[in-house]
């Protein structure tokens, strides 16, 4: 693996996506401001806006970084550079992940700080919010991986739909796990075995998605 080349590919995508990064950070900051500024209604609206900003920026990245590479015919340019299929995949996976982690980390840290710094918000929400933020990361990785493997707009759109439905189903299910629900609206942060297991399962899912993507890409016979 030529790490210098992969680094260059990531920096290239970072530069090309700079407005998405700035836009998602601005959207996240606005959502957090709404959350703390308008009481209970503001909290719910702000949270919905936060989730929307994260999901939208993740999906947007998958489309502009991966699907558009084929659609706008820049894939031939990239693949004519001295890179292998695996290096291209590593560049795309890491660029997607690292760029998304910028707004994701800012919004996760902002949300947790908000919960812990606001007495009116139950601190017991911390595990649930963390699990759901990581679920958004899982969904984003899922959309990115399908986009990389399929290079298809239709498949990517289908994955966005499945991912968004999946996010709501996971949110509902996690909130109804008895041990999680029992402490969710409590005054203290409780990381019980169920919360930790769910969190680990999410991280393993991300690892499996990446492994699958590299496996498929290394066997591809067509690149343009």
């Amino acid at each position: 693996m030529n790490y210098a080349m992969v680094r260059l590919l990531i920096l290239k995508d970072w530069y090309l996506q700079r407005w998405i990064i700035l836009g998602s950070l601005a959207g996240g900051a606005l959502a957090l401001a709404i959350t703390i500024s308008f009481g209970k209604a503001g909290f719910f609206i702000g949270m919905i806006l936060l989730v929307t900003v994260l999901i939208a920026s993740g999906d947007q990245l998958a489309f502009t970084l991966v699907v558009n590479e084929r659609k706008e015919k820049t894939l031939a340019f990239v693949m004519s550079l001295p890179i292998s299929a695996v290096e291209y995949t590593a560049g795309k996976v890491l660029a997607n992940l690292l760029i998304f982690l910028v707004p994701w980390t800012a919004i996760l840290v902002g949300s947790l700080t908000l919960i812990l710094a606001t007495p009116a918000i139950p601190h017991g929400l911390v595990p649930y919010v963390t699990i759901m933020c990581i679920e958004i990361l899982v969904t984003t990785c899922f959309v990115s991986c399908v986009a990389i493997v399929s290079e298809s707009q239709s498949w990517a759109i289908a994955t966005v739909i499945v991912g968004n439905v999946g996010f709501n189903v996971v949110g509902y299910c996690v909130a109804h796990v008895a041990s999680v629900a029992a402490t969710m609206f409590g005054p203290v942060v409780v990381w019980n075995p169920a919360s930790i297991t769910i969190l680990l399962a999410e991280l393993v899912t991300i690892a499996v998605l990446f492994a699958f993507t590299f496996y498929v890409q290394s066997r591809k016979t067509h690149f343009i």
Partner: protein
Amino acid sequence: MTGNLAVHFEGVGKKYPHFALENIHLELEQGSIMGFIGANGAGKSTTMRILMGLVRQDCGAVEVLGHSMPEEQVAAKREIGFVSEDMRLYDGATIAWHMQLIGKIYPAWDQTYADHLCRHFDLKPQQKVKGLSHGQRVKSALMLVLARHPRLLVLDEPTTGLDPVARHEVLGELMKVLADEHRTILFSSHNTLDVEQISDTITFVDWGRIIDSGDKESYLDSWRRMRLDVPPGVTLPSLPGTIATERVGRMAVLTTCSFDPAMTALCRDAGANMQSVDRMTFEEIFIQNVESRRDRVIA
């Protein structure tokens, strides 16, 4: 592989649901310029993509600059410059940004030459690709490739869609590149005039097969169209290399791919009057070649 070959295809095939590239044998010597002529959908782009390692062949062997493809594509692509008609640069970035990117990847990047090409092609480095015309985009892509001095240039229909002035500029710059006798070029087009202008060997491809290959001068020397007046009762002799015979009344038009001045005497001896023996353009040779091969396949 012979040490002097830049490109060597041996029995290469690739099947798609509605198209198949079959049994491609291709040899391109280092320092030569090969024109790859074929109609749309003939298999030119597929062949070039296989050459670049972007598409894996189903069968056969491909070696490019001593590298087995697609396995050693990374090493090969360091020495190949590829420009394709359907290749685009990043709309959101400037030409200068692309130049910086390529400069970081290829140690042989020649900024002075790149600046010269920008001036020659009337490209403004600070301009975003989004605002470029098709001709400027092609010239930008070509500039990015030429300024890193690749050993092998693979140009897939680079002049398609260019206006006459842009075509003239692009071909002119390629002619200058040809002055470097170590540079090898594979140039595909369905425009025979472009190919004729810069190539020293020509390969015709049609329906996924190479139908003919040879040096440019020998094509022009050996292909002729003969117009004969054939009186009633006279039978034309069987001439070697006859590709097509058309008859309208007493008039006969024979096309041959292995013309010999002795053919004139043979026809005269048979009782026919040779009215003219015309040289053929590459376009005529190409069309005749394709049509006769298609006729044979259909028959």
